């Protein structure tokens, strides 16, 4: 008898669901290309995830205001998954099975790697905020594309820069600081192998949680090995914690943060402690207003009554990811499916992003896009770029 209520409950919930879904199908006669978005607005990486999502949504809105792509409007259906892989799986199923999207802009390393099997099976091109080296394996992840240099490439470029600019005696000593997630551990092995090849000593590794508010014990531990440099693979929150604690403890190590550790938000969080911090920068800062690509962002923002100064580098990053994806859609022609978008992306050759990022190139057997990054140092509360786009 009790089973009745299960049915009742289910019906009730599904009615609620259906009512909720009804609003999303607004085609009204014109052609619509549906793109999915799985973003982190409220989770552990929301500090950088929120501006990234805003940037991606902004680009879609911008391109629609220009008449869409090949006469079709782009609809971005976005879901906040709070950095929880099980919720990402559920969100993915909704986007693919319910909304029938042709491509997805994703977010984290853990969930992107978790989804790559399904992505390949469902033939859904996927550009995420994760630049994990594991996603470049065409055989295992044929539908994943990387919008910027992989974490491993970023770390290699940073190590190469350290080696090239090393003036002391012996090999430079480097420590690695990361978190215990697929995102944090992604570049570690590759960085160690590369360091060995070029003659940089990795002297210490420390694990600092993504949401850590204290890193003193790890930093004291690290300081025993007296590293000259420390490479940080975290987001803004944890990086700010590390920099503040390092300043408090008087640690002289020079900190270099990979892409998600660097950006304007870090300075807001870390204040003075950020001075001298070096960031690996794959995308442009909003204060680089002379870049041709920045004009489009400025134009979009002014139509919304906003200024470039309100946004940050992660916004640009989301904007560029969406731009790369939609260039793939443009190349797909009139018949837009997951497969044609993939072929469209594979046609991109030195795609000019107006200086917002290094040009990307995809081929059927290489989805890396680029391995170029720039380096920037915090001086007087502002990131100053001090290299051109470099690789390793």
């Amino acid at each position: 008898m009790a089973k009745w209520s299960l049915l009742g409950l289910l019906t009730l919930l599904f009615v609620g669901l259906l009512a909720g879904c009804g609003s999303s199908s607004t085609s009204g006669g014109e052609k619509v290309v549906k793109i999915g978005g799985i973003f982190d607005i409220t989770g552990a990486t929301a500090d950088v995830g929120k501006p990234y999502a805003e940037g991606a949504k902004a680009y879609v809105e911008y391109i629609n205001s220009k008449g869409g792509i090949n006469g079709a409007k782009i609809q971005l259906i976005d879901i906040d998954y709070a950095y929880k892989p099980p919720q990402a799986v559920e969100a993915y199923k909704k986007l693919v099975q319910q909304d029938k999207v042709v491509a997805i802009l994703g977010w984290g390393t853990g969930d992107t790697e978790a989804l790559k099997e399904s992505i390949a099976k469902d033939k859904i091109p996927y550009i995420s905020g994760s630049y994990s080296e594991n996603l470049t394996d065409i055989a295992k992840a044929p539908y994943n594309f990387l919008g910027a240099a992989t974490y491993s490439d970023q770390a290699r470029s940073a190590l190469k820069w350290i080696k090239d600019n090393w003036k002391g005696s012996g090999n430079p000593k480097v420590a690695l600081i990361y978190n215990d997630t697929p995102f944090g551990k992604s570049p570690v092995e590759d960085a160690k192998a590369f360091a060995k090849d070029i003659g940089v000593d990795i002297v210490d590794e420390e694990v600092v949680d993504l949401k850590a508010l204290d890193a003193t014990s790890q930093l004291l531990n690290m300081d025993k090995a007296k590293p000259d440099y420390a490479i940080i693979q975290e987001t803004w929150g944890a990086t700010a914690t590390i920099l503040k604690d390092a300043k408090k403890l008087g640690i002289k190590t020079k900190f270099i943060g990979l892409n998600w550790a660097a950006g304007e938000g870090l300075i807001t969080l870390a204040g003075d402690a950020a001075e001298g911090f070096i960031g690996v920068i794959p995308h442009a800062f909003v204060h680089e207003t002379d870049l041709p690509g920045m004009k489009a962002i400025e134009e979009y923002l002014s139509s919304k009554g906003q200024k470039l100064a309100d946004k940050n580098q992660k916004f640009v990053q989301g904007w560029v990811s969406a731009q790369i994806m939609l260039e793939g859609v443009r190349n797909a022609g009139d018949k837009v499916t997951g497969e044609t978008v993939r072929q469209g992306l594979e046609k991109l050759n030195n795609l000019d992003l107006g200086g917002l990022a290094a040009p990307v190139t995809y081929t059927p057997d290489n989805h890396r896009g680029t391995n170029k990054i720039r380096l920037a140092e915090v001086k007087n509360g502002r990131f100053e770029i001090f290299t051109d786009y470099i690789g390793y």
Partner: protein
Amino acid sequence: MKNPFVMGCGEFRISYRQDMAIYKIPRVRSRVIIILTLFLIYPILASPYYISLATIAGIAAIGAIGLNILTGFTGQISIGVGAFLGVGGYTSAILTTKLGFPFWVALPISGIITAGVGALFGIPSLRLKGLYLAMATLAAQVIIIFIINRWDSLTGGTAGLVVQRPTIGNFSFDSEISYYYLMFVFLFITTLFTMNLFRSRVGRALVAVRDRDLAAEVMGIDLFKYKIIAFAVSSFFVGISGSLMGHYTLVISPEYYGIGISIEYLAMILIGGLGSVMGSIYGAVFITLLPVILRELMNLLGAFFPDLTAVFAGFREIIFGAIIILFLVYEPEGIAKMWRNLKDYFKIWPFSY
């Protein structure tokens, strides 16, 4: 023909067989069969996304029933469910990918190994009760996840393991519909087993341990033995659930088995109803679907108030928390009890005095 709107006013049993039945009244029995049939034809009527939601809820229900055996029926609180799900998932993944076992062998083995691990962490339960036991099982959670994270060569570390859908001969459970039926079979067996467990000697002993362990011991119930049994049986189903979930999502990684998942499972049995098999199922459905419904609701509101979209994203968490709190305050015995109240109300309606 009997009037369908009239309730039966008494039961008259004339054989032990009738006395032993779970559903004693023929009308109720046929109703149960009709509902089961409805669930069997559900995937034919629903779209793949709704089938996948039902599958996720169903797999969670198996784990929730497992936890309810331990916490609801035996009174031993556990905050280690997440990790035990992980043990099940990883055992199954390692057996199928590294050792080449078929899924059908790996599934029961993962249940058995999880039962063993659960029993091991259940040993302190003889000395520890309530909050102390909660802390001990929390330790299990931390230890197991730490091992999974660090034993890279076996578990793939934080990157996790990729598994395949089960197959029979040439048939693979690739589609949503086929996996739904697979889940349904296991959920049915689990439900049937657990309902019957608490009509047996062992089950009665477990309930006695919950109600007053000292009195149970005086009556000759071996506390240690039955507590370990509760931990083992409970973990067995949690392990099965973990394995099924792993083969459904195709990837197993430590992020799936965090402390948050443990709390979620506790919420399922609390909201569904402690000590109720059907309650575990209601709770699992509720907790699985609530975030989805809230998300859709917030999206709907966001369409009307585009400037407030960011605010609604935060609202979602607040409402989720508030619903759970209100549930615990106003109906601590959960959805199962709400359903019973409703039935009782209609049984005597309109003459409620």
